[in-house]
């Protein structure tokens, strides 16, 4: 056991392998996840290690992938299905919204859907159209689904393990521009802590990724590093900014968020997705509902514009930047 430089992608890959090792019920499938190891190599080596029956390529059909995952879950498996890119999960939307999310409820708990849908999402990697959507709001709006999205290498490992072990279906959003980010992590230690139950749970728990007292940035997934950078910058200007990383979008951690905002009295929600009717809207709405009398200013949002995700030459304008976050912080009526 030792600390080493681990990439976000490697943490995910290790989580999958460890989960497959821990239970024969776990099976991994999707497009190109077998021989190729996935277009992002997140499933690299799993077929070689666990056999073609436990990590395999399917025909090219997303509704088919999720629909058969539903059947597998009905029959005792814990499927982990990969959608190759965010926008290519849309053909499976009916299976997700009408079955994955509802089967447990429909059967009064007789059937469980312990399945995970992994979706590489978001932009910032120069991807062409359909490869950069932030589609988490569609799923977060669908009762019965849990929605996780890690922002750190450690969380990538821990949250994917939690997702696979959850008796409920989890849509697991992997910020693709963090795949190649790295951190010093001891994966062996993490594994044993996770398996011993000595790690704090991430599901339903937001974490304060940076402490501060003047304002709170509430964020998740690919926007967390941007928020941390903005907070760092703000600190240079003498502003103490707290950053809350949700990680678990559903279930949502009202307590941690509200505690932070009540403390700082100011909040900005940051998310890359287009803002209208989004998770960011929800966070803003519930934060003002719960913290109204502590607020010195409205809860603001910094999000992607309400436009289709733009082409590579334009995406830097669209993705919330440190500057836009700092501007929003400036707008929080500091004279109040």
């Amino acid at each position, binding site marked *: 056991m030792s600390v080493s430089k681990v990439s976000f992608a490697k943490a995910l890959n290790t989580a999958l392998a460890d989960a*497959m*090792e*821990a*239970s*024969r*019920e776990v*099976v991994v499938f999707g497009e190109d996840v077998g021989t190729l190891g996935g277009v992002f190599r997140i499933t690299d080596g799993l077929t*070689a*290690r*666990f*056999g*073609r*029956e*436990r990590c395999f390529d*399917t*025909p090219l*059909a997303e*509704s*088919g992938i*999720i*629909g*058969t995952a*539903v*059947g*597998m*879950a*009905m*029959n*005792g*498996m*814990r*499927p982990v299905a990969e959608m190759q890119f965010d926008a290519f999960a849309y*053909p499976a939307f*009916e*299976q997700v919204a*009408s*079955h994955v999310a*509802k*089967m*447990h*409820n*429909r*059967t*009064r*708990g*007789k*059937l*469980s859907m312990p399945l995970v849908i992994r979706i590489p999402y978001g932009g910032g990697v120069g991807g062409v159209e359909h490869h950069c959507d932030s589609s988490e709001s569609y799923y977060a709006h669908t*009762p*019965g689904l*849990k929605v996780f999205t890690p922002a750190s290498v450690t969380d990538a490992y821990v949250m994917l393990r939690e997702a696979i*072990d959850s*008796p*409920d279906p989890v849509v697991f959003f992997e910020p693709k521009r963090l795949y190649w980010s790295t951190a010093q992590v001891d994966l062996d230690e993490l594994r044993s802590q996770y398996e011993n139950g000595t790690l704090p749970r991430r599901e*339903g728990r937001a974490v304060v990724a940076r402490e501060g007292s003047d304002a709170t940035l509430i964020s998740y997934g690919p926007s967390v590093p941007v928020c941390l950078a903005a907070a760092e910058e703000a600190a240079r200007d003498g502003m103490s900014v707290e950053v809350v990383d949700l990680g678990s979008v*559903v*279930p*949502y951690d*009202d*307590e941690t968020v509200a505690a932070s905002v009540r403390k700082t009295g100011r909040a900005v929600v940051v998310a890359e997705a287009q803002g209208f009717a989004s998770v960011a809207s929800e966070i803003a709405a519930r934060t003002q509902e719960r913290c109204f009398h502590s607020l010195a200013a409205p809860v603001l949002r910094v999000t992607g514009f309400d436009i289709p995700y733009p082409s590579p030459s334009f995406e830097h304008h669209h993705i919330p930047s440190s500057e836009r976050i700092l501007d929003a912080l400036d707008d929080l009526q500091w004279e109040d």
Partner: protein
Amino acid sequence: MSEPTPADGESAAQEHTPPVNPAVEASKNFGITPEQYMLPASSEIRLLNPDGSAVPESEQGQEPGHEYPMPDTDRLLTAYEKLVVGRRINDQNMALVRQGRMAVYPSSHGQEACQVAAALCLEDDDWLFPTYRDSVAVMSRGVDPLEVMSTYRGDWHGGYDPRQYKVSIQATPLTTQLLHAVGVAHAAKLRGENTVTLAMCGDGATSEGDFHEALNFAAVFQLPVLFLVQNNGYAISVPLSSQTRAPSLAHKGVGYGMASERVDGNDLAALLSVLGRGVELCRQGGGPLLVEAMTYRMQAHTNADDDTRYRERDEVSEWVAKDPITRMQRYLSDQGALDDAASERISEHAEAMAKRLREAMASKPELDPQDLFRFVYHEPTTQLREQAAQLADDLSREEA
């Protein structure tokens, strides 16, 4: 999470004997191409004429690989009883809907032979995947009608435990359930279990993308799934001719590399024989298979529908003469297997079932509003706990 087991890259499935390749065997046995093996026989399989007489062997169009024997009389008698009960339940339910005791009912009146055969061709460990219309199949497989009807009464989305009966929920979003069936079969295969899955849908449903994906997944993974399409000629108001231009729906099989067959869906004998062989083939590893049963829905799509808007009464009347019950009844009587006493006993059984249903539906069960929040997740989220508390609060104030 279950006990960790050593992972070793070997699957249970791999240890089994290699599955039969029926296309290869057929070409050995009959000298036909795989493509010929996969296509359905040139006309639908029928063992009993509409008047209840047995179709002579010479007229059965015995193409190589498409010969089906007459099931034995005992089996037909058991099946016949379920047919009569199924019809009685169908009609009872329609009456209950008219009386406002049930929210909706899609009757399979006229299609009961398909319903019964779908249930009877399976073993206990096999799985059945029905649609909204297939309540009679669900009951024929042994699910208590009262549990089935709770959905249509509006008490909850589903009534029975799918795992207990190995009967999935009655699917409403069309053909989504075919993929679930394929997934169930895939899981069973991975565990090395030798179960067969029978998955049902209607003619209209074959147009959905999920139909295509399900058949293809089943074929690619060589899963023991028997797809049964009840072609009743209509999807609500839309006739088959607006749904497809294929020579038959069974002709879709070859496009997946799947053998297929067409059968008279009002001929219980033929259905039992074709589906029985299909299940056996699947069990031997020769699946998946596609069977199209030609039948007719004698009533409107549901009680909410008005079928006089889209089909002639003459057309409906024509199908009265092909009724699956009278046909089987005549055959069994002619065989001396169904005398008045037996007929009487069967009617009484059906009547008793109907009575039980009527009585159960006469009163509404107590429903707990807090159930709304209990089954969304295994543990309610804080959000749901708050909402549950709010509702409880509202209700107690209302009562006060």
